[in-house]
């Protein structure tokens, strides 16, 4: 319950932190409230104000979060508030008044105000969005596709169970539903765990930690990470041999590692599996 209240308390700041559409909305509510006497759609305005207040106050917000099954975070309770509708309604009323019912002759008053509102809208835009990461996402998709194309003929006739770095595992299930994984995106995206009653075993978590370690300690610009690998393996009580055994038990028959994986890990894998790695677009793969 404490967590729920904390989420309800901090949620408002999270919602208002990215972009200022909420500020626009609150200003719109104020405008409509002030002009309330002439307001024809009072029911919508009343509902908008009441629902917004319910979402802002932590106690009612926590109740709404319980109502929406606790599966969804605080920000989703704002779905019940007609933010876009009321903001656009207020905007239309302002513009209609300034343009005197959208008459061309009213441009002296209407044009500067329209430009001002557009500038305000522009300033209220958030800085980030996933659009910026598009090139990166596409590159990962293409990389995964290339791996699958190369590995495909090698694995023909057998059910592929792949253990690979996080991003590859993320894309592989989207590209080909026939490929199995020992663990999936729900391992590192906690929210996805809500879709299943199954939980990951400790062994699977070990596999995940080992692969994360392999990814994080890749050799870059000649920087030797061997010491880091040893420390982290000891810290997390990980052993390459044990992880490979777990992988075998889980039915993994394809292991993919980054090309610049630390030599110590690559040598251990080669030694324990007895399979020599093959290369494909920045990755080593082992047909186990």
């Amino acid at each position, binding site marked *: 319950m404490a967590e729920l209240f904390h989420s309800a308390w901090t949620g408002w700041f999270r919602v208002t932190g990215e972009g200022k559409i909420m500020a*626009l909305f609150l200003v719109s509510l104020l405008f409509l409230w002030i002009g309330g006497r002439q307001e024809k759609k009072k*029911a919508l305005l009343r509902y908008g104000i009441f629902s917004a207040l319910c979402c802002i106050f932590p106690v009612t917000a926590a109740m709404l979060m319980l109502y929406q099954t606790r599966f969804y975070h605080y*920000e989703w309770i*704002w779905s019940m508030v007609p933010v876009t509708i009321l903001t656009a309604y207020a905007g239309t009323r302002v513009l209609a008044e300034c343009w005197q019912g959208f008459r061309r002759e009213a441009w002296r008053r209407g044009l500067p105000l329209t430009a001002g509102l557009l500038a305000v809208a522009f300033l*209220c835009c958030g800085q980030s969005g996933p*659009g910026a990461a*598009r090139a990166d996402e596409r590159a990962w998709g293409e990389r995964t596709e290339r791996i699958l194309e190369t590995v495909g003929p090698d694995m023909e006739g057998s059910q592929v169970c792949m253990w690979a770095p996080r991003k590859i595992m993320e894309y592989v299930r989207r590209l080909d539903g026939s490929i199995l994984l020992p663990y999936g995106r729900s391992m590192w995206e906690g929210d996805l765990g809500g879709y*299943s009653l199954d939980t990951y075993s400790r062994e699977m978590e070990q596999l995940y930690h080992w692969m994360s370690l392999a990814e994080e300690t890749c050799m870059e610009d000649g920087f030797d990470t061997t010491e880091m690998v040893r420390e982290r393996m000891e810290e997390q009580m990980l052993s390459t041999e044990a992880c490979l055994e777990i992988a075998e038990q889980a039915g993994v028959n394809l292991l993919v590692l980054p090309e610049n994986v630390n030599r110590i890990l690559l040598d251990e894998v080669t030694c324990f599996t007895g399979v020599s790695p093959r290369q494909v677009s920045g990755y080593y793969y082992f047909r186990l």
Partner: protein
Amino acid sequence: MNFVPALLLALAVLCLCGFLGSGALIFFDFVGSFAAKRRHRKMLPQRNGMNQGLNGADALLTGGVILTGLAVTAHAAAVFTGQSFSRCTVIFLCVLGAALVLAAVSILFFVLSHKKQQDTGKASVFSEMKKMDSGERVLIILFGILAAVQLFYMIRYAGVYVEGDMTLETVGSFLQTDGIYQVDPMTGQAYTVGMPDRLKILCLPTLYGFLCRLSGLAPGTVVTAAVPIWVFVSSYAAFFCVGRSLFPESRKKRVCFLIIVCILMWVGCSFHSLDGFGLLYCGYRGLTIRNLVLIPYLVSLCLRKKRGMALICIAAEACIVWTFYGMGVCLLTAAGLCLAERGLHDGRVSSGGKGAA
């Protein structure tokens, strides 16, 4: 990704929704008139279903909700009787066929019984278009450009945000295993314990799976390109309905309202729970459909006092989003709007009473 097939599929689904919705609105109107006649035991003035504040956008949105209803029927039948996905597709085709026949009969009935009115209606549409002044045309063109740019951007960034969602993997696993919720979509491995029962009712992945099967397109194309286009058009149709309810007197204001909505979508595209973000980056999600199609449509229906129709939005939400035992945001919104309306009505009555005293 080739977007032409996705665009064509979206267009086909929109046409299907429009047809189903038109038939359903005529049917509901006919049933409503018949019930009213029986209740009052007298002839009422003839009512024209399309002239009761319901229009093409309503038909499109109602059709979308009906399509979801048909999908959930087939989905539930298959899940609770352990049928394969192929069998589920057959069930879906059967119920869709029946619904299309019913819609065709309703439309035919409407056309035959309103032939004269329709002819005069056509003339009035043309004269209305001629009457449109230049300012109105400029606003409509501006909205068209803004919407087209947004659509282009949306297609370009298709499927870029997948965090917290596994629709694509789920559709892929349905098609791969020919079963519904048989394997964990994240790993492809069979469930050991299973999944929550309340989630099993959610039918969107099944509906997308049907579209993949029937069109022959890959899940990636259907889920991240075709469906968001359908949702995009439906969303603006829903906001158009809201505009009509808010500004019934002026078309210019309605178009201006849509332009502002379009701009607000850009403004709100930086945070994952805002409307703009949903529309531009993840139009295929149940939450996006609820927030951008069902809720605006529900608001417009409540403003027009068509509460019976609002029930279908509440039911549709329960089929596509994880709700509190079927009670979701649509129910809260509808209840809130009704209470606000009633409060105003009571206030007016009591102030009127005092005035009279």
